[in-house]
């Protein structure tokens, strides 16, 4: 009734090529952005101020749900570009995220390297020497991480010209296992600490504390300022929205069409003048750029400190792949829907299963919850592939089609 194209005419080429053809869609997007940028932070702030919500609940929402959601959305966007649009299956997403995280770490500490020399007493002295000034701007770090990961992605994408389909999927496993091995064995990557854990140093953006804490003198007293969850959330949100916009415009332009042509039939694409190597490598570069940013965001904003081999293992790769499948291969909206779905289900299960078990007097421990999570993920993947191979994005589209005809579907 309200969702109609009636009365909307495309009177110029620019209008005809708009991302959102319908005014309602455009308003819908602005509405979502308004909610995400303004209603959520202000609303939660007011709820806490009004005493309706504990401050810890608010921080939990930001730190454990919203930030994870944003990081996962970014990674899903990246994989969707490679797998959904360009048709190259990758099982190495987590490793590329890891490259992003470690790049951000190295640049935030100034690319330290170690020199060892013997002192007068003949004992070995090690010293960390920075190569560059440390960067303390989180956004710059995220971008650098993206670029470095893009280079690594291109290197591992090189075989894709010769290797296709499943053979390529297995070849990307090489990236996964090799890079993750580097994260725990190449000492330079984690500044030679024995636990191979990386921790992001204090960072600031526009004078706001983003990570770590800062002690300032105020009225003659030392006050420690901790980063506000809102700051992290808004920075991440801005990054994700900005790059989703870029991704959307990439995939509907010349580049995206070339990717889709390669995906649908690479020989035919070659015949109409698309260079397969350049196109595939570009897809690998852009995809890795996004994944690298996701990894850097995960380190800087979400986790703060992590152990590479554990945080970016192969299950993480699969979970991003699941986001893309469930959300919808070849859909930007789908990446977000899938990321939301895969991120929220475990949280929902962790809360609901023990409660459900309690109702029937069955004790439910963490292991059971994890098993159920895996089983539900597995079953959902199969169900989605059978019922709707194009995922949530397709359901969303069908819903919109129905809405257009409602309430008179004829």
């Amino acid at each position, binding site marked *: 009734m309200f969702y109609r194209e009636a009365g909307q005419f495309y009177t110029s080429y620019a209008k005809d090529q708009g991302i959102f053809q319908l005014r309602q869609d455009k308003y819908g997007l602005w509405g979502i952005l308004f909610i995400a940028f303004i209603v959520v932070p202000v609303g939660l702030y007011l709820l806490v101020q009004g005493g309706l919500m504990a401050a810890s609940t608010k921080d939990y929402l930001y730190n454990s749900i919203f930030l994870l959601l944003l990081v996962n959305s970014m990674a899903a966007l990246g994989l969707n570009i490679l797998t959904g649009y360009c048709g190259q299956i990758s099982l190495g997403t987590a490793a590329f995220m890891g490259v992003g995280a470690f790049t951000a770490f190295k640049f935030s500490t100034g690319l330290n390297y170690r020199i060892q020399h013997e002192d007068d007493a003949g004992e070995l002295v090690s010293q960390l020497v920075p190569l560059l000034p440390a960067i303390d701007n989180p956004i710059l770090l995220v971008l650098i991480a993206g670029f470095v990961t893009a280079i690594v992605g291109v290197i591992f994408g090189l075989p894709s010209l010769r290797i296709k389909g499943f053979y390529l*999927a297995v070849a990307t496993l090489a990236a996964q296992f090799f890079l993750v091995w580097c994260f725990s064995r190449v000492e330079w990557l984690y500044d030679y600490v024995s636990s191979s854990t990386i921790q992001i140093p204090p960072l600031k953006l526009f004078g706001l504390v983003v990570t770590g804490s800062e002690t300032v003198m105020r009225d003659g007293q030392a006050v420690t300022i901790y980063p506000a969850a809102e700051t992290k959330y808004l920075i991440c949100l801005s990054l994700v929205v900005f790059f989703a916009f870029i991704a959307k415009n990439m995939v509907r332009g010349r580049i995206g069409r070339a990717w889709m042509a390669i995906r649908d039939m690479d020989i035919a694409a070659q*015949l109409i003048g698309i260079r397969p190597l350049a196109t595939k490598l570009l897809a690998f570069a852009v995809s890795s750029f996004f994944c690298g940013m996701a990894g850097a965001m995960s380190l800087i904003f979400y986790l703060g400190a992590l152990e590479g081999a554990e945080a970016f293992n192969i299950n993480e790769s699969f979970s991003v792949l699941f986001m893309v499948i469930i959300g919808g291969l070849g859909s930007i909206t789908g990446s977000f829907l899938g990321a939301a779905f895969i991120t929220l289900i475990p949280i929902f299960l962790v809360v609901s299963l023990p409660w459900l078990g309690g109702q029937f007097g069955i004790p439910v421990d963490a292991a059971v919850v994890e*098993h159920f999570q895996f089983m539900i993920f597995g079953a959902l993947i199969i169900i989605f592939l059978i019922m709707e191979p194009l995922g949530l994005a397709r359901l969303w589209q069908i819903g919109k089609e129905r809405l257009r005809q409602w309430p008179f579907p004829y």
Partner: protein
Amino acid sequence: MGEFWEFVLAPVLIFESWRFGMEVAISGLLAGVMYSLVALGFVLIYKASGMFNFAQGVLVLFAALNLAGFIGLGVPIPLAILLTIGIMILFAIVVEYLILRHLVNQEQIILFMATIGLAFFLSAFGETIWGSDVKKLDVGIPQGRFEPFGIQIQYLELTAGAVAAALVTVLAIFFSKTKIGRALRAVADDHQAALSVGINLRTIWIIVWAVSGIVALVAGTMWGAKSGVQFSLSEIALKALPVLILGGFESIPGAIIGGLIIGLGEKLAEVGWGPYVGGAIEDWFAYILAMVFLVFRPQGLFGEKIIERV
């Protein structure tokens, strides 16, 4: 010889002490046989349905979990093996009924992702039923080792080699001499032509999945006897993937030879280069080896030549 060459040739230099070298080589080859056992199951399903069955590794874990579980319950070993075979056949029927028949005519990538879903479901399902602790699996394979010419060889690894040889022989006879085997090969060649001469695709799929389930049981028994039945078994089984791409997806001899190359290469690299770079290069060496190999021969050693037509 310079340090550089010493590093580059490290895997070969192991043979300076030839006994040690032979021990490393033999244990590598026999580990490769274990990989081949897992890879065989992949090849069977790929040949018959064009499905890249990612769940094969988990199938190995699932079969071993069931067998270990039944034995743990006090069921006599032969009966436990029969019960597990029964479960694998039942599983094949369920998979065909619930998944395969709904995915006919879908693209290969969709089928592949469905098997990833299946892998996740199955591994969690098995552990929910049997628990996630490490189980010992003892089906009477002799432990210990013997030393011909001073080279130590584990009985278990030797048994695995013998079992693999027997399995390949049985499969070869099954494929070439029996009616079902010929039907399977017909399906592998051309689905539609097979249908048109009256071969029932669904029955064939059930048979193929059941056979690869039983192959998985054999592989699972060997792995389980070697390192206990636990979740990481499904990750070891991932190693079967580089074996596959090295040997070619469609080739049973390829799976065996690919397994031997991977097993040998990996062990020699680990012993030779491992100490220089901090060890554990076994984790990724097989994948990189397979990837480099693929660049030169995209269809693997024995795979059918990839011919692309517009």
